[in-house]
């Protein structure tokens, strides 16, 4: 035992030059290196350059690669010691979503000669789905809260009327009274299209549905636009813009810059002074002043254009 102890100590001392002190465990599993989100708002990024090559070992804290986000190029450090097994996304790859595997990392001493790229995992879309379903559920539940509150706060229905209509939107008292007076069943109320704020039922909607009014807004007509043509154009463009996908950071900046370019075009043109000048008026600045020229020489000079045109040559030839 004693000798073994000594031997192991000697072995330790001999191997101390090699970096044997690792805080990581030796394991044979290959770990996937996913695209990290360098900021909470980052959704995708590009790889600027890999700082380590395949098969190269690294220590915890070494820079593995540089990631290009829409804001900046950021270094990504390694958390553990290891060896870069395989690079899946090479330099220059763009638009990699956060969470996608971009490399395989291995431990020191692992066999990395035949690493295969794993099948694409469905983790990123799953997380997006769960987040979108969560956001959908949170938006519907607050809307169910206010009608509960309003139903409690609204005046009690007449004792003869036991039917309280259920709507996903809050009910105006006038609308509630109309519904109850005319005994509208639930099925009909659901069919009425609301033209109020956020789709709420208005009195006009109910009256129009009952046939007691011609339209939800009655006889009120909006004044027609001054130029029907431009309205149609902006209307079409507006719809097109809404139909387009929501803009991300880079696209917003491009939009802002192009708008600024258009808006400033007039000013930029105005900054360049448009001088109505011809050859003679420019030359007149440099020609020697005539003695008989009065104070208002400019209009006189311009009126005597044909003469000054040939005069300057006289002295030269």
């Amino acid at each position, binding site marked *: 035992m004693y000798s073994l*102890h000594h031997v*192991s*100590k000697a072995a*330790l001392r001999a191997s101390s030059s090699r970096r*044997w*002190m*690792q*805080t*990581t*465990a*030796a*394991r044979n599993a290959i770990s996937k290196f*996913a695209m*990290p*989100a*360098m*900021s*909470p708002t980052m959704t995708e990024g590009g790889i600027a350059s890999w700082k380590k090559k395949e098969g190269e070992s690294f*220590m*915890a*804290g*070494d*820079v593995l690669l540089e990631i290009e986000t829409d804001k900046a190029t*950021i*270094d990504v450090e390694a*958390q*553990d010691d290891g060896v870069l097994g395989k690079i899946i996304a090479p330099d220059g790859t763009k638009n990699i979503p*956060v*969470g996608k595997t971009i490399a395989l990392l291995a431990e020191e001493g692992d066999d990395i000669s035949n690493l295969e790229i794993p099948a694409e995992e469905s983790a990123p879309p799953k*997380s997006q789905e769960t987040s979108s379903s*969560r956001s959908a559920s*949170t938006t519907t*539940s*607050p809307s169910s*809260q*206010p009608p509960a*509150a309003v139903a*409690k706060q609204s005046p009690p229905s007449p004792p003869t009327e036991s039917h309280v209509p259920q709507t996903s939107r809050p009910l105006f008292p006038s609308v509630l009274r109309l519904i109850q007076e005319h005994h509208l069943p639930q099925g009909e109320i659901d069919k009425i299209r609301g033209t109020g704020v956020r789709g709420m039922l208005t009195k006009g909607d109910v009256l129009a549905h009952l046939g007691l009014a011609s339209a939800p807004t009655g006889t009120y007509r909006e004044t027609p636009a001054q130029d029907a043509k431009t309205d149609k154009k902006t209307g079409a463009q507006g719809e097109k813009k809404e139909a387009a996908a929501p803009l991300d950071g880079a696209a917003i900046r491009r939009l802002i810059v192009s708008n600024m370019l258009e808006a400033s075009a007039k000013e930029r043109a105005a900054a360049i002074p448009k001088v109505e000048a011809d050859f003679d008026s420019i030359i007149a600045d440099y020609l020697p002043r005539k003695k008989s020229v009065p104070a208002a020489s400019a209009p006189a000079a311009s009126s005597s254009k044909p003469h000054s045109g040939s005069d300057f040559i006289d002295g030269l030839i």
Partner: protein
Amino acid sequence: MASLARIRTAVPRRMHLARAIQTAADTTQLHQDASHSEPFTVKLHEDSFRGYRTDTPSLDVEVTKENLLKWYKEMTVIRRMEQAADALYKQKLIRGFCHLAIGQEAISVGINSATTFEDKIISSYRTHPFVVLRGGNIKSLIGELLGRVCGVSKGKGGSMHVFTEAFQGGHGIVGAQVPLGAGLAFAQKYLGKKTATFAMYGDGASNQGQVFESYNMAKLWNLPCIFVCENNKYGMGTSAERSSANTEYYTRGDKIPGIQVNGMDIIAVHQASKFAKEWVTSDKGPLLVEFVTYRYAGHSMSDPGTTYRTREEIQRMRSTQDPIRGLQRYISEWGLASEEDLKTIDKEAKAEVDTAVEEAKQSPFPDESELWTDIYKAGYEPPFMRGRDREEVHYY
């Protein structure tokens, strides 16, 4: 201003002629043959402590093999857990704030090793290790960071709002926990308990006014409060020299004695914590303890950590002063365990953390009804509570 920071790092840190504290993690010497079953004595490096208005703790420390291996396991688990939190944040499963204590593990493990669960520990927000050491588990901590129901605060608190029965948090406002800690010590003295309070803060919070108010009250009323300054040399992005006129944080207590401790050597931290607890529980009044340590990561997950210090500095600290590496060296050199044993501990730690993370991920998010609970004590709520906007009203 960033250029100034770079110039500063080129200047050597401690230029005074007095002996400086050393912060290597592996300078403790074996005094007698390391016994595997009985406590044995080790001698700390002579520059492990510095004292102000007091003698420093003894350099001879009695340790046992089980303790050293236990501390090694704890520190490794904590390191793995923080790295797992880092990876989860980068996958956007953890959102919001996340302040990691990678590099500072020796402090939490060391303080925990010298205290019981009766002592109070209150800290700021770099406190994930304390949750796991003081009664929580990895699943509940990671679950809290992920915002799931299995978390210590039911997923509603997040990284800066973690508490256990034996750990008093977990506080977001910088330096706000120090007066709370003094109050906890006051309660302990009032109730006649022979226990201590560790009120912890960082070098960035050490200049807060309420910290000095707490010093005054603790000294005036002789409270059993240990003020612990975790000096990791950077308050967010500001180095200690640029933020504090007096960077000897252990002298800041004026009349309160203080000691400065090498926070990267687990044995020194253990000895200092034991010394501090004995000090305050023997009615000597408060004590200031400054642990000189280092964090490898940035201040939080949104800070890369390299804009105010060089990568070489971080790598140098990692390779020469890592607390886990230092303890590993002790264990190997003193023949307490072989390299394979330690690697097995590493593997177990990694497996433990991985399983806990997977379990935490399976836990659901809190139900909508949880928005209205834990605001008031159950049964004492007002008739109604307003939510996030005007229409959202909850009736109890």
